[in-house]
């Protein structure tokens, strides 16, 4: 049976695993229990800085520490990272200070808290910032591995994690996971589905249902939205001739946009974008939200057939 876990747990584990590096510090804004930085706080209270409920301050405390030789990991809900956007822009990205920001509870999949907590624009807005690497991993293993790679990055980053559990795909496959490199989870020549985060497992389900209809799909986990793995996009566009993107994010500005931006300038192929249809969410269970937003496996499969029809 598939193991289920939340990506935020992978983040919390990674912080503990990184603790051997004495320059690693953790910054919290009263949501450590939720983002899972609390494990680090318990083990290393001296290297954990509480910033209260003050995200703007937290990010710039991180900037000051990064400028002083530390490697700060700051986390809060994805939605609350957005109120510190200008701090991220002017105080972190512009001077290229390697502060690593994690926004948990991203997307409509976060569920019953409702629309105020369901960030659907975080990936898009942070993707517009020069110097910032943007990631949205799909399982706890890849979240842990990608987080572990951040200290070597030397530039700032934003990573979205999710509140709720999703199928674990990478147990024993840690070596395949690298920042900036998409991972081919399934090979097929009819259509390529490029997904991130919670919709990666939905895309695998969609590929299974397409297979029953004789359609063979490639499925890619594009955990890094920026820099986007253009080489892989070119390869699958050439091989499959049609693409679908799938993300629990506004269809404007996120993974679909990143893939489209690459395609139009390089290898042309029809593209269907599955994402939140430019609307806010509501309270509901995670699986219900994927249906309401029309981003579940069913809709991904429909989009795949449409993309194929446009070849």
């Amino acid at each position, binding site marked *: 049976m598939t193991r289920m876990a939340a990506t935020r747990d992978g983040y919390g584990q990674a912080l503990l695993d990184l603790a051997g590096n004495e320059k690693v*510090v953790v910054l919290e804004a009263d949501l450590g229990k939720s983002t899972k930085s609390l494990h680090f706080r318990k083990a290393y209270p*001296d*290297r954990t*800085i*509480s*910033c*209260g409920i*003050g995200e*703007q*301050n*937290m*990010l*710039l*405390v*991180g*900037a*000051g*520490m*990064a*400028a*002083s*030789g*530390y490697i*700060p990991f700051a986390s809060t809900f994805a939605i609350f990272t957005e109120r510190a956007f*200008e*701090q991220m822009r*002017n*105080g972190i990205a*512009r*001077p*290229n200070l390697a502060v690593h920001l994690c926004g948990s509870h991203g997307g409509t999949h976060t569920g019953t808290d409702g629309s105020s907590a369901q960030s659907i624009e975080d990936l898009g807005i942070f993707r517009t910032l020069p110097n910032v690497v943007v990631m949205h991993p799909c399982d706890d293993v890849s979240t842990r591995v990608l987080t572990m790679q951040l200290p070597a990055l030397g530039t700032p980053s934003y990573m979205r994690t999710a509140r709720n559990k999703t199928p674990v795909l990478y147990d024993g496959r840690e070596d395949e996971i690298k920042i900036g490199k998409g991972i081919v989870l399934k090979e097929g020549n009819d259509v390529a589905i490029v997904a991130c985060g919670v919709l990666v497992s939905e895309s695998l389900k969609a590929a299974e249902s397409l297979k029953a209809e004789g359609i063979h799909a490639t499925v890619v986990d594009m955990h890094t939205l920026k820099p986007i793995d253009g080489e892989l996009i070119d390869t699958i566009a050439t091989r499959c001739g049609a693409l679908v993107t799938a993300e629990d994010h506004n269809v404007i500005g996120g993974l679909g946009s990143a893939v489209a931006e690459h395609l139009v300038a390089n290898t042309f192929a029809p593209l269907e974008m599955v994402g939140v249809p430019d609307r806010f969410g509501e309270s509901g269970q995670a699986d219900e939200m994927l249906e309401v937003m029309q981003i579940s496996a069913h809709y991904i499969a429909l989009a795949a057939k449409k993309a194929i029809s446009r070849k």
Partner: protein
Amino acid sequence: MTKSISDLEEIARKCRVEIVKMVHRAQAGHPGGSLSEIDLLAALYATRMRVRPDEPKWGDRDRFILSKGHASPGMYSILAEMGFISHEDLKSYRVLGGVCQGHVDMKWCPGVDFSAGSLGMGLSFGMGCATAARLDGSDRRAFVMIGDGEMQEGSVWEAAMAAAHHELGNLKVILDRNRIQNDDFCEVQMRMFDIPAKWKAFGWNVKEIDGHNMTEVMEGLDFLEAPENCNGPSILIAHTIKGAGISYMENNPSFHGAAPNDEQFHQAMLELGEVEA
């Protein structure tokens, strides 16, 4: 390196000359807040800052964060006076490719520790520097200069609360209380009521001085460094005059962000004793 009061006053006078020259050359920039802060910067850099101008990235240097980063001519002039940059570099103010960017920028100018431009950010950054110093077991300090209009940014108070919570005795703020912001007098734009009481209520050590009286400035800096005030963050509220030293700029909101014309420039040089009538 002992400096007398008159030495410091002369440093500040020379900086004022450079400030006016910079904004006149660029025909843009912020003379008012540069002139209000400059006596404070002159005393701070000439007598307190543990820095190495020939090694600007020395790890254990004191940090200075100009949060009101538009008042960059003031900082550039003292950096030139201290030898971080040359006086020739001052001509690059607001010029393409120049080390003297419009707002102070750590990626462009030696001696600048913080890339400013948006108000309400420097105190948080300074808190990060102070926290890092504490973790390092270093006695280096973080000095942050903020403006009074800047205190209308809510993020200043996030940082004020957090710095006191963490008892950051190595964090020292100087408030340039020049009473004027971009559009008008602070009193018109947003009344701030009892500023010392606000900082005291946030848990800070507070002292008020006349920011143009060099003897009081030195006493104020003594206060920031006093061991009894290193139990937590401290703020020096310096009452200043926007545009101080140039008669037509003083207390004139028009010179928050405007350059003098040629005639006004000549008058400024006369008033600063750079040319004879």
